[in-house]
């Protein structure tokens, strides 16, 4: 235990000091950390799943608090919790199926099952499928009706699991942990290969002789463009430099070394250049439940420019960036204000910041936000590792994934999600608009 404790503390302090850059790295490290937490957790004989969930939750809450702006942490924690529940469920149902077959079952179990006989059957069917192939977001997306039924059975499954006194418990407990770790490994794998999976779709979207515009630097975008290049597509890229951190410069350099025709422009030239552009492709920091995007500062301007000229605006996001929260939720910290020294040199301006003279209050205020919020209506397409999606479908994806994770609720209030929210897009659009202007 002390080992994991130290690891957790180390990771928390790194998150706090903003030492981990990029949501992919964060997501991967979070998953790895949670894997070691799970493997170190001692499971009791009864209710192992609850013990695992509890320890993951405890760590997860601390991780999220350490840097609430990094939404990927929360996303991964939720995914891991989901995995634990899924695995537990599949094990239970498998056991139950065995019990049913041999017709030896407790009375209570019977009563329980009698209440919802149809659903149980469905659950068993789903579970048997999932034992063959461990559940992932992909499976969930493919099997829409089944996954909706799973949460209902989770309670009965939990009960029966607690009460059944089968002899193979110890082997089962080991099996649960083992399965969960396997599934988390798969998640880590998913996160680290999401670039490739997204990049595979590149040729479908980038056509010959097109002009692509992007802002700042994103590894996903880089891989995406390079994948298209490797498939012998010839196209040109406009890179907007992405002030104040100018990561666009790095991207331009990288693209040139890969042999792509690149044009570097200032952020302020985006509107001037957009009429020559066929498609805008940007990376994202996080994708919210309503399909809104949190992306590096400046992207909203690009999105508006694209809309004005009817240029498709495509967002690339690995599934770890999908967040089940709404942007107008008070718990969501949309932005982070970084040091003004990225904008201007302190020494040169030190005389403007002399509070000794004048009214004793700063007359100069430098604001350096990290992110922009892009409304869902400005986004034409999301490309995730599971394929391309329309913004309104992001919500749908989420409903599937989150509803199943809701069972024991991790105090993420906005998990309560209704599809009709998306129909009210306009209303939320206004709210978000107001929020995105919060500076």
């Amino acid at each position, binding site marked *: 235990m*002390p*080992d994991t404790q*130290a690891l957790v*503390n*180390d990771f928390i*302090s790194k998150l*706090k*000091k*903003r*030492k981990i850059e990029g949501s992919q790295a964060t997501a991967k490290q979070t998953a790895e950390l949670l894997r070691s937490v799970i493997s170190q957790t001692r499971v009791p004989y009864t209710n192992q799943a609850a013990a695992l969930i509890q320890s993951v939750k405890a760590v997860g809450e601390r991780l999220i*608090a*350490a*840097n*609430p*702006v990094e939404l990927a942490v929360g996303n991964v924690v939720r995914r891991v919790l989901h995995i634990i529940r899924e695995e537990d469920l599949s094990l239970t149902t498998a056991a139950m199926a065995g019990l049913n077959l041999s017709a030896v079952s407790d009375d209570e179990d019977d009563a329980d099952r009698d209440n919802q006989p149809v659903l149980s059957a469905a659950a068993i069917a789903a579970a048997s499928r999932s034992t063959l192939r461990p559940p992932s977001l992909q499976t969930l997306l493919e099997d829409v009706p089944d996954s909706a039924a799973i949460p209902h059975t989770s309670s009965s499954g939990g009960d029966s699991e607690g009460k059944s006194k089968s002899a193979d418990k110890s082997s089962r407990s080991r099996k649960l942990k083992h399965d969960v770790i396997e599934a988390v490994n798969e998640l880590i794998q998913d996160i680290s290969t999401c670039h490739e999976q997204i990049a595979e779709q590149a040729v479908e979207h980038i056509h010959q002789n097109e002009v692509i515009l992007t802002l700042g630097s994103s590894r996903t975008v880089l891989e995406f463009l390079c994948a298209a290049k490797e498939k012998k597509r010839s196209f040109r890229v406009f890179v907007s430099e992405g002030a104040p951190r100018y990561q666009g410069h790095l991207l331009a350099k990288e693209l040139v070394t890969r042999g792509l025709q690149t044009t570097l422009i200032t952020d302020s030239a985006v509107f001037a250049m957009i009429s020559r552009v066929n498609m805008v492709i940007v990376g994202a920091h996080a994708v919210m439940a309503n399909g809104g995007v949190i992306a590096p500062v400046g992207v909203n301007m690009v999105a508006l420019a694209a809309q004005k000229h009817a240029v498709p605006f495509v967002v690339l996001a690995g599934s770890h960036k999908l967040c089940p929260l709404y942007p107008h939720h008070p718990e969501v*910290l949309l932005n982070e*204000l*970084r*040091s*003004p*020294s*990225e904008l201007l*040199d*302190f*020494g*040169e301006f*030190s*005389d403007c*910041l*002399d*509070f*000794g*003279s*004048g*009214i*004793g*209050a*700063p007359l100069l*205020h*430098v604001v*350096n936000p990290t992110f922009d919020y892009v409304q869902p209506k400005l986004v034409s397409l999301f490309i995730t590792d599971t394929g391309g999606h329309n913004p309104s479908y992001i919500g749908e994806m989420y409903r599937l994934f989150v509803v199943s994770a809701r069972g024991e609720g991790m105090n993420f209030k906005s998990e309560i999600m209704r599809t009709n929210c998306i129909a009210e897009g306009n209303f939320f659009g206004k709210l978000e608009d107001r929020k995105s202007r*919060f*500076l």
Partner: protein
Amino acid sequence: MGAQKKGATARVSEDPEELARNPLQAILLADSFATTFRPITLERPKVLLPLVNIPMIDYTLAWLESAGVEEVFVFCCAHSKQVIDYLESSQWSSQPNFSVATIESHNSISAGDALRLIYERNVIHGDFVLISGDTVSNMLLTQALQEHKERKKKDANAIMTMVVKQSKPSPITQQSRLGTDELFMAINPVTKQLLCYEDKAEYSKGFISLDKTLIADNPSIILHNDKQDCYIDICSQEVLSLFTDNFDYQHLRRHFVKGLLVDDIMGYKIFTHEIHSSYAARIDNFRSYDTISKDIIQRWTYPSVPDVLCGSTAIKVERQGTYRASDVTLSRSAHVGSFTFIGQGTKIGNDTKISHSVVGEGCTIGSNVTIEGSYIWNNVTIEDGCQLRHAIVCDGVIMKSGAVLQPGVILSFKVVVGQQFVVPAYSKVSLLQQPTQQDSDEELEYADSTSGTGELQSEKLNGDIAPDLSETASELGTGGVGYIWSVFEGVQDEEWRHSVAPIPTDKLVKLMLDEDEEQLTQDGNVLSASGELKADSDDNGSEDENNEDSRDDYVFFEKEVEATFLRAVHENVKVDHAVLEVNALRLSYNMASVDCAGAIFYSMMKLAVESPHSSASELHKNAAEMITKWQKLLKSFLHDIDEEIEVILKFEEMCLESAKEFAALFPQVLHLLYDKEILQEDAILRWADEKEGADESDKVFLKRSEKFIQWLKEAEEEDDDD
């Protein structure tokens, strides 16, 4: 368990490498060895004072940790127990890869003592970072450290790298935005070697001197006045041994750095590392406390900002740089303006206006209160209708309704301000009485609260302060509790420089006018009034009038001359040598010979008064002896009539002030001086003429010596007759 063991063995196998690469260590001085934060520091050490609601030492430790330091030695002296207790209960005691050890001492009175003690402990094994516990920074240490190590490899004498940052000083007040004196640094632009380090105390004489050899050794030297010393030093082990070898080194800059730069016998070199985009600053006085708080709120220190440091769920940044904790109770009509921090559990009443301020945790603020540019710490109660402008209010203070704090006020812990009471500007209020000993500046600087405070502290802990307070309660209005500290003479004028309040415009205007005036007099002697003797004699004279500093200088000079003279008397130094010495003093203080004459005469007469005598006639005899013996010394500074008149004026001044016994003997001594041909009759007559027009009170001595002057006049006429 198994995994743990594995870890342990793995570590052992790495050990040889680990040993080669010493873990980076740091010495954190948790004592400023200064008194700038009194009276607050009488009750709590400076490093634990909240800066935007987080103790200063947390900023320093957070930086050290993020900069890759693995081992920190916290040196605590004043209030060491509080510091140790705090560190033990804080997050720092349980960090992996970051150990914080405390070193306690009760008799260290300076940074030099602290370093000598640490050297004795033998805990530092390689390069270390030397920092004081009141430094805020977000710089990356790697580059500076790398540079330091490479230099060290090439040149074993490069023992220290000093971090500097550009920051322009104000041209009017001659001080930086941190309230510290303007600093001159001469740096070799290529090697970054520091060649000269002068702060105001030294260059008040009006010029800086650079050794000619510096220019011979360095093809180019850049002289900066816009560099701020961040007080972050990367030192090699030699620094500690140097402190031990030179046991008179006390102050890090004034003694150590200057010592190394001036005595190049040892050949040690100091280099600078300039940071551009990152932030580093030390809290030296109340002005820098204010400035750095505002920098933090404006996020220059990111990620050392409150919302990140306290776990961001608790504190949120809103529009216009307003930081608000989650559970603040804010009245609907209250107005929280820009750049303000409101801590947890604070309640704010109707129509209260707060701007540019920091309000700590658990405060209760009533209705119609105005708070502007103030720092309010934890659990403070401010009743309805109070007004606070640019003040610091410590923990547990109660301000009764209608009380007003004028700019620059410091209220120390648990003070109570009575109803409707107006605390005057720049006053410092504490429950503890002002320590009575008035040490000279220098000693005060080092002998911080160790001895005096310890007692005060225990006294306070023992309980009832209330009884002795009852009599002085009126000092802070009805129901008020606390003493208003009086300000030392001379410091009072300077109080505005280091206060939290912005510099009042009238001061700025005055300073600007003074500057213009000085320039005018220097340019074309426009102001040297003809009627005034002093102004006539020398340019310096008129500067004296304007410039406080040179007035002080004269006092110092006079003391030096007196000391020299006494030595000459006691050690029977030859007159010629004494003349040389006085001349040397004259040059170093940039004085005119007229000042020398005055000073010498003053010392002579003082000695005469001090030597034993029973009656006036004996005193006269003493004076006569003295004058006879040292007339040559005096004469060598009396070249013209003006200087002689100065001597008479000086004597007159003495008779009025320091040596009243001479008052009766004034004509006799005057006669004596005339007899010895120290004073010419012209000088005496001119003096008499000048005095003729003066006030009655000024003419006392003129009247006494009327006979003598009469006689002189007659003698002159007789001469004419001849």
